[in-house]
């Protein structure tokens, strides 16, 4: 079977006209550079050697970070731009939902715009006549259809654009992140319409950041990264790989930010020698912003967050184990010491705080190097970014070394539950209550 969409080794290089985009004819003439100005001076590869096929009747979700080439791929399939090299083949009539209502003229009525937009999208006048009522009903604009489009709200505008585009009855439907139009009800209607397309064995190419939609709705996912195809296949698998990659990037980002914060704190700590505001301790903790202070007798040399497998990381999944490992260096022998940690959420609320003293570990002796590990079996936090306080201080609270909000970690969760505390729980149902089985 010939694929509905086939890209073979497609490269798209966008030409940047070297900032001469608004070049004036005069300067071009003066510098005798008309031809040079019309030839690109700088290039930017949006897609590099991408090949993929979509069999007819399949729904494929294109995912990837911003700037990964998703929209370019869609425009190439739509034929709006041409590939620099490689071939794009599409079987059948295409309708592209890239910008809704792109061809609407504000001064004329919705009715006339539907006709013109329909013709632009490849319908004949008669075909539009036949579908007109359906289009208007779908857009929920019955009373306003004879108003000039300039009086429409942006939602009405989008709905009409969507309604026309979807009623073109394409063989291949291209959708670029346009489902965010209209209210909940309209979004559902759009999804129903897509479902109908699927049942009628039409091919859909969907560009979106909504991974849930891809997982629920698509037969396959295609992951583009920096203009290259990273993976194509089962949505759950591809999305999993994509998420892992996103986490890895975030991890890198968090690690570098943490390192920078730490360095800044260290620099300010060494600048202000000795104890800094010894009295400014636990009581004022919530007011203090990130930083590092203390008398310096005992030093926290490093803080590492580790996952179950002992690998340092900054990304955890809700319910996973976490180990906070502190490398301690005591510059003199001390008998009076407490190790503490605090977890803060993005709003600065203390989610949890504890220390060895609270948990009745009586200090006895600390000298030289030591390693302290606080092991959390299951990190039951909701999704979000959290910061960590770690400290070693005297029983009366006077700090040896206090690291305030210097370490960041992120919790990922499939569920979007909310709050600051996530009790381990489950649901039980008895009697006449039934839930649908989980979608795939």
């Amino acid at each position, binding site marked *: 079977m010939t694929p509905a969409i086939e890209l073979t080794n497609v490269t798209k290089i*966008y*030409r940047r*006209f070297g900032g001469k*985009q*608004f*070049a*004036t*004819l*005069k300067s*071009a003439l003066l510098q005798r550079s008309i031809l040079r*100005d*019309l030839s690109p001076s700088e290039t930017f590869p949006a897609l590099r050697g991408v090949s993929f096929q979509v069999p007819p009747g399949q729904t494929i979700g294109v995912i990837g970070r911003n700037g990964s080439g998703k929209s370019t791929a869609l*425009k190439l399939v*739509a*034929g*709006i*731009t*041409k590939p620099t090299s490689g071939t794009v083949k599409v079987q059948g009539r*295409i309708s*592209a939902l*890239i*910008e809704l209502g*792109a*061809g609407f*003229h504000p*001064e*004329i009525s919705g009715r*006339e715009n539907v*006709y*013109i937009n329909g*013709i*632009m*999208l490849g319908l*004949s*006048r008669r075909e539009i006549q036949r579908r007109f009522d359906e289009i208007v009903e779908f857009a929920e604009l019955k009373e306003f259809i004879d108003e*000039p489009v300039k009086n429409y709200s942006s939602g009405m505008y989008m709905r009409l654009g969507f309604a026309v585009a979807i009623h073109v009855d394409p063989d291949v439907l291209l959708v670029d992140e346009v489902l965010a139009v209209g209210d909940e009800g309209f979004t559902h209607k759009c999804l129903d319409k897509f479902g109908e397309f699927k049942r009628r064995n039409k091919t859909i190419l969907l560009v979106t950041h909504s991974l849930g939609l891809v997982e629920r709705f698509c037969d396959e996912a295609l992951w583009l990264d920096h203009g290259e195809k990273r993976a194509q296949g089962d949505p759950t698998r591809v999305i999993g790989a994509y998420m892992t990659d996103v986490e890895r990037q975030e991890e890198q980002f968090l690690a570098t930010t943490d390192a920078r914060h730490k360095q800044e704190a260290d620099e300010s700590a060494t600048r202000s020698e000795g104890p800094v505001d010894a009295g400014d301790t636990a009581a004022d903790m919530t007011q203090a912003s990130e930083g590092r202070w203390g008398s310096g007798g005992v030093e926290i040399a490093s803080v590492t967050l580790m996952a179950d497998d002992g690998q340092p990381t900054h990304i955890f999944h809700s319910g996973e184990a976490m180990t906070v490992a502190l490398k301690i260096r005591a510059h003199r022998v001390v008998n009076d010491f407490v190790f503490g940690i605090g977890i803060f959420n993005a709003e600065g609320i203390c989610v949890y705080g504890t220390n060895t003293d609270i948990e009745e570990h009586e200090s006895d002796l600390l000298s030289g190097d030591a390693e302290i590990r606080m092991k959390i079996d299951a990190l039951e936090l909701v999704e979000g970014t959290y910061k960590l306080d770690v400290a070693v201080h005297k029983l009366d609270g006077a700090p040896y070394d206090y690291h305030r909000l210097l370490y960041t970690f992120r919790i990922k969760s499939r569920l979007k539950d909310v709050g600051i505390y996530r009790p381990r729980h489950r649901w039980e149902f008895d009697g006449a209550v039934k839930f649908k089985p989980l979608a795939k």
Partner: protein
Amino acid sequence: MWHNLAELLRYRGLIQSLVVRDLKARYRGSVLGFFWSFVNPLLLLTIYTFVFAYIMKNDEEATRPYPVFMFCGLLPWTWFAASLNEAAGSLISGGNLIKKVLFPAEILPIVSVLTNMVHFLLGLTILAAFMVANQHYPDWGQLFLFPVIVLVQLTFSFGLALALSALTVHFRDLKDLVANLLTFWFFATPIIYFYGSASMMPYKGYFNLNPFFHLVVAYQEVLFFHGPFGAWVGLAVMTVASVVVFLAGYWLFDRLRDSFAEVV
């Protein structure tokens, strides 16, 4: 290029709708509506008639009645100038279509030319009214040439409009340049004055270089002057030239086509 040209025929329905839309949109909300199409040429006509017939005392026997003479050249010129002015900016103002919809870009300048042709054709009714009022009628036997001249001008305008619209995408100030150049061109063409008057003799050579001169003379020969049609050579040359200009304009447009979606 040939393939794209053939493709263009398939879009005639769309072109037609867009011309109608532009005409509707232009007059939507204005009380006088289509009447505005005539106001500008009428105003020019009144002013020039006043200036040349009364102040300058231009008593050229050949150009009487002067308003009819002048209108024969002014109407096609207004069509020509407005077409180019609009076409020059058509790709930029229609950028949304080029970037977001699969849309043959050449339709935009073509629609500019055609919309103004509709104004031109409507303006002919005013010319007819003036002819009746002045009891000065065209050479009925030569009237069959009128559609030919219109067609030549249409082809010529298409060519220039395509080239201009494509180049303006890259050189934005071409639009202003064109507007000013057209003013100059207007006075360089014998529309408000008579090319055959004695004082014009030294400039005959320059007139021959002006493509619109040949069109205007052809219009005047058909619609105004009596006697045998005296512009056969000019019209024949312009027929060939317009086809060449059209093909050259389309070729240039086609060459630059792929850059539109990225640069607009």
